[in-house]
């Protein structure tokens, strides 16, 4: 993404967006309200219960915060993939194929949803709160983990987005399925995974590697053992999981585009 051409494409999108000032302002406002409501729901929820799956409120907020920041970044980077069915239906995808650039980065930079920054902002606020309220054994390693975990999480979520969107090359109406995995993945990653039933948990935690976004890194930060018996090492491998997920996403995308060029559906 460091290539100047993508920087310029992003820059052009930002200019295009500010061209519709009122709509941009309304989008930001809507996001702010949505984020406020979400925080309110969580605080009400936690006033009713003291713990969730054996985790205290502030511990859960830590997971929620890391997941929110990760998802917010991924949404800005990859959220544009939600438009893929539209690209395919209207032939805009063909235009992408006519350019000497990869199709995936072209779609990713085709819009920058600046108003989605709200999600990252609330995530950061929640993170500040959680870090202050939890007893964390600070060391250079834990500091690094606080910084790296949301970034690795963003890569994981973006990869999930890519893979789930690629379904649309086969099912043009596959958008619902995609959203289930992307937005569902965010909901899943925001809470301790031991509260979910077995099959769903295994799928969302390890197939969609949602557990590596916030749950395992949070355990490592808190110095807690996994109630499910996973090794402590899991908290530190998120960057590797992210790399692997990105690799898989790249391969799936290539395969999907090959299918599209092979069928022209």
């Amino acid at each position, binding site marked *: 993404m460091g290539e100047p051409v993508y920087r310029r494409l992003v820059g052009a999108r930002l200019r295009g967006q500010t061209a519709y000032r009122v709509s941009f302002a309304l989008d930001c406002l809507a996001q702010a309200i949505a984020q406020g409501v979400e925080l309110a729901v969580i605080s009400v929820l936690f006033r009713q219960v003291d713990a969730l799956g054996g985790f205290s409120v502030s511990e859960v907020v830590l997971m929620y915060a890391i997941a929110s920041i990760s998802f917010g970044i991924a949404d800005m980077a990859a959220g544009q993939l939600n438009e893929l069915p539209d690209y395919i239906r209207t032939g805009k995808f063909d235009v992408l194929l006519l350019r000497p650039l990869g199709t995936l980065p072209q779609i990713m930079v085709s819009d920058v949803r600046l108003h989605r920054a709200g999600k990252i902002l609330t995530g950061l606020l929640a993170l500040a709160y959680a870090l202050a309220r939890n007893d964390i054994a600070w060391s250079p390693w834990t500091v690094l983990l606080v910084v790296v975990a949301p970034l690795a999480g963003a890569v994981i979520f973006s990869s999930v987005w890519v893979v789930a969107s690629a379904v649309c090359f086969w099912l043009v109406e596959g958008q619902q399925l995609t959203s289930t995995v992307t937005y569902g993945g965010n909901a899943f990653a925001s809470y301790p995974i031991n509260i979910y039933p077995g099959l769903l948990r295994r799928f969302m935690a390890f197939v969609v590697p949602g557990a590596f976004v916030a749950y395992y890194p949070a355990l490592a930060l808190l110095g807690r053992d996994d109630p499910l018996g996973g090794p402590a090492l899991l908290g530190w491998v998120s960057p590797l999981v992210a790399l692997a997920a990105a690799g898989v996403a790249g391969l799936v995308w290539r395969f999907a585009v090959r299918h599209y*060029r*092979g069928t022209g559906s």
Partner: protein
Amino acid sequence: MIEVRDLRREFTVTTKTGRFRRSRRTVRAVDAVSFDVAAGEAVGYVGRNGAGKSTTIKILTGILVPTSGRVRVSGVDPARSRRELARRIGVVFGQRSQLWWDLPLRDSFDLLRAIYRVPAEDHRRRLAECVELLELADFLDTPVRQLSLGQRMRGEVTAALLHGPELLVLDEPTIGLDLESKERLREFLADLNARRGTTLLLTTHDLDDIERLCPRLLVIDRGAVLADGPLEELRERVAPDRVLVVDLERPAGPLDDLPGVRSVRSELGGLRLHLTFRRAETTAAALIAAVAARADVHDLVLEEPDIDDVVRRLYARR
């Protein structure tokens, strides 16, 4: 510039036959098509809807991968070297835009310069040329969504030319344009082909486009090449009859014994005669001289079968 050998392209069509049952059927959109286009040519690629035109264009431009056959465009295999090909050719789709909808035209051009990594000097020169010839100056700073169709198409053509392609592929470039815009575009393209030697391949339903731009016509129907050659030659082959319509000062008999005349139709009580003849048998000049020797000619018109007739007859002969 373009080399197509035995190109085939199949699609699987799924149709619902019951609540859960589906039947799959293989449709051949392009069936054993072969042709070559040399550098500097201007070729019209015509055919009815569903004849396989768009599929061929998509294969030539690297969007679709062929089922079988050999394709070389600008020296590369479009299926394998899509990005390499993209740098060498320009593509204009009349029905879909490659401009940025909410940005001024000028910004779209700047982005394309970055995408194709065109040196600043080349970009400036090519843009200046297009701005002048296509008269873009008045709306360069207007967002694309506010342009008229004619203005937008001129922008699209410019966008496809800024990286200096050696081949320009146009899919229905004049669709929906008014007469003046069409004419302006044709003039520009004819000039591009003649002066800069850019190879043109265009699909169209407007046969005037072909008449104006393409010395060579490639007719496709049901996935196969139906005819390929100079427009004149095709005309000679399938619609060789020309008609000389003469208005006479006074009736002068049927004149059906003139050399080369195949049939005569008389109108206005013998004052107007339609003389059908063939280029291979006599020339218009010789016939006019022969008529003038026998009758007082008031006025005359030479009617050629138009390209529409040519294509229609080609279809009818199948």
